[in-house]
């Protein structure tokens, strides 16, 4: 752990993040950003690992040299990573601990009991016993269902599955010949679940913070062009150590011209999507979550005509901002690693210039020593309650229902299914593809809980949903039509 800075206790600084892996990643981003602001990144790049791991005593790995070798890789990823890899999610091979991957195994805790519940629970007949009555699993028969482990009274059967593999619900992670994790880009939806779950921080998302710093600096205090920050509504559940208005002021102090809620784009999308739904005569799947959209393209290509034709909320409002200020640069700040893929798509590139996460925003604040808790509170109020609750699972369907009512499309009967997490999305899409799902609107959120469960969030807590709802209720505008009355909707 880092020595406490100034008069803040170490626990408090760590408290900004869920895990020490996030904290380590943050420190690298912060140091890279510090050098980038000063224009000294290239000359001091090699010093960064030593700043983070000083001295000779290792705290994370076998020796400080390995720690620093891994940090060098982290620095590269903080600077944009491997340009030849189109995926924004990347494995740091040297950091991968090559965890055991044997699947279900009987451990020493097996007492050789008489009950043999494991044997009864196994439908594949994969369990046998040696002369000490100790259980053994026949790997050629085992299908990894886990019933034996569930039924053992001594919890003696363990699942040695890698955390990254467990986290990846789209089966994009396998092992290469060196036993390091490998991502299959043709399956990966860049949701970042593995990034958040790898206990060694060996899988991480590429960062574009130096592009943002460059954009801000070259704007010459927003005189040459203006740099707008577009924040995702999940921000309502983040930076809980400060007030939201202070975060917005902090963004201004970083050099952004102003901050706008992506939730206003969500209001616009809810309005247009409900109309599209009522007119389409069939069913629609939502287009807000880029990982969900990517999942459909990769796994259910026949269903892609049913993806709503609206751009995502962020791209929708960014397009509007560009129409009012064509030379502007727009940076999306959110919880999402898949957004880092989305903004590179041809359909979105003209509107969004860069994407960073809440983690990266925290690193940017601290790279300029901005203590947001000491700042005055700025305002953030563009969207309605309904635009803001897009950040949590179920919010989008609620907003579409509201938009139908506000547009007097009461004859249309909405049958919405809100899919919370990519596994639920997969189940619903599978049912729909077989014609056994009675729904005309499928809301898909790849992260469990919705955007508040995104890999780029600082914290993922039980209270986050309530926080987003609270933030939603604080909006000045109570209806979608009021919120969007000030913007022109695209034709």
């Amino acid at each position, binding site marked *: 752990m880092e020595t406490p800075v100034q008069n803040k206790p170490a626990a408090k600084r760590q408290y900004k993040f869920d895990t020490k892996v996030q904290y380590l990643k943050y420190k690298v981003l912060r140091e890279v950003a510090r050098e980038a602001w000063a224009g000294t990144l290239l000359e001091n790049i090699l010093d960064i690992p030593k700043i983070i791991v000083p001295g000779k005593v290792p705290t994370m790995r076998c020796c400080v040299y390995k720690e620093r070798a891994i940090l060098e890789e982290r620095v590269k990823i903080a600077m944009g990573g491997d340009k030849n890899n189109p995926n924004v999610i990347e494995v740091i091979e040297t950091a991968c601990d090559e965890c055991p991957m044997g699947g279900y195994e009987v451990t020493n805790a097996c007492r050789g009991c008489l009950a043999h519940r494991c044997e009864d629970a196994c439908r594949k007949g994969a369990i046998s016993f040696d002369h000490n009555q100790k259980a053994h699993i026949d790997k050629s028969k085992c299908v990894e269902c886990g019933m034996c482990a569930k039924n053992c009274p001594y919890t003696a059967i363990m699942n040695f599955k890698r955390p990254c593999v467990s986290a990846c619900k789209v089966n994009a992670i396998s092992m290469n010949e060196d036993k390091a994790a490998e991502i299959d880009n043709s399956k990966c939806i860049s949701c970042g679940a593995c990034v958040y779950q790898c206990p060694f921080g060996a899988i991480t998302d590429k960062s574009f913070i130096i592009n943002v710093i460059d954009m801000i600096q070259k704007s010459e205090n927003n005189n040459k062009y203006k740099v*707008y920050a577009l924040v995702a509504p999940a921000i309502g559940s983040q930076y809980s150590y400060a007030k939201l208005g202070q975060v*917005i002021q902090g963004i201004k102090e970083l050099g952004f*011209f*102003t*901050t*706008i*809620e992506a939730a206003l784009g969500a209001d616009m999308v809810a309005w247009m999507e409900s109309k599209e739904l009522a007119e389409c005569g069939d069913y629609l799947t939502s287009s807000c979550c880029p990982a969900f959209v990517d999942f459909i393209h990769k796994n259910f290509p026949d269903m892609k005509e049913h993806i709503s034709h609206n751009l995502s909320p962020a791209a929708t409002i960014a397009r509007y*901002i560009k129409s*009012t*200020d064509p030379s502007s640069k727009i940076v999306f700040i959110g919880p999402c690693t898949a957004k880092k893929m989305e903004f590179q798509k041809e359909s979105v590139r003209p509107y969004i210039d860069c994407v960073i996460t809440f983690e990266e925003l925290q690193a940017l604040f601290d790279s300029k020593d901005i203590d947001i808790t000491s700042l005055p509170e*700025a*305002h*953030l*109020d*563009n969207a309605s309650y309904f635009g803001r609750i897009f950040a949590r699972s179920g919010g989008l369907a609620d907003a579409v229902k509201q938009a139908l009512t506000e547009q007097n499309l009461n004859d249309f009967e909405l049958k919405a299914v809100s899919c919370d997490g990519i596994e639920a999305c997969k189940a619903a899409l599978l049912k729909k593809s077989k014609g056994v799902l009675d729904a005309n609107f499928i809301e898909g959120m790849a992260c469990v809980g919705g955007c508040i469960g995104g890999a780029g969030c600082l914290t993922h807590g039980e209270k986050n949903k309530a926080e987003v709802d609270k933030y939603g209720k604080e909006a*000045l*505008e109570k209806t979608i039509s*009021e919120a969007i*009355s*000030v*913007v*022109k909707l695209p034709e």
Partner: protein
Amino acid sequence: MKVTVCIGSSCHLKGSRRVVEGIQYLIAENNLKDKVELGGTFCMNNCQNGVCVTVDDKSFSVSPDTVEDFFKTQILANV
């Protein structure tokens, strides 16, 4: 004539929606749709004096209560 109303957060909280709606209504009532182009923008860097409105290159501070007066003197009179 181009009329731009700030719809950034500060001005929004000071009532920019009602200012936009007021101007929209008055434009329609006076049949000026072809002559006045009404648009929005996010922040004019003058938040203390919001709601900020520009008419071509001139800046004004308008509130929902003064929108009718503003329309008469700055838009209707000059169009």
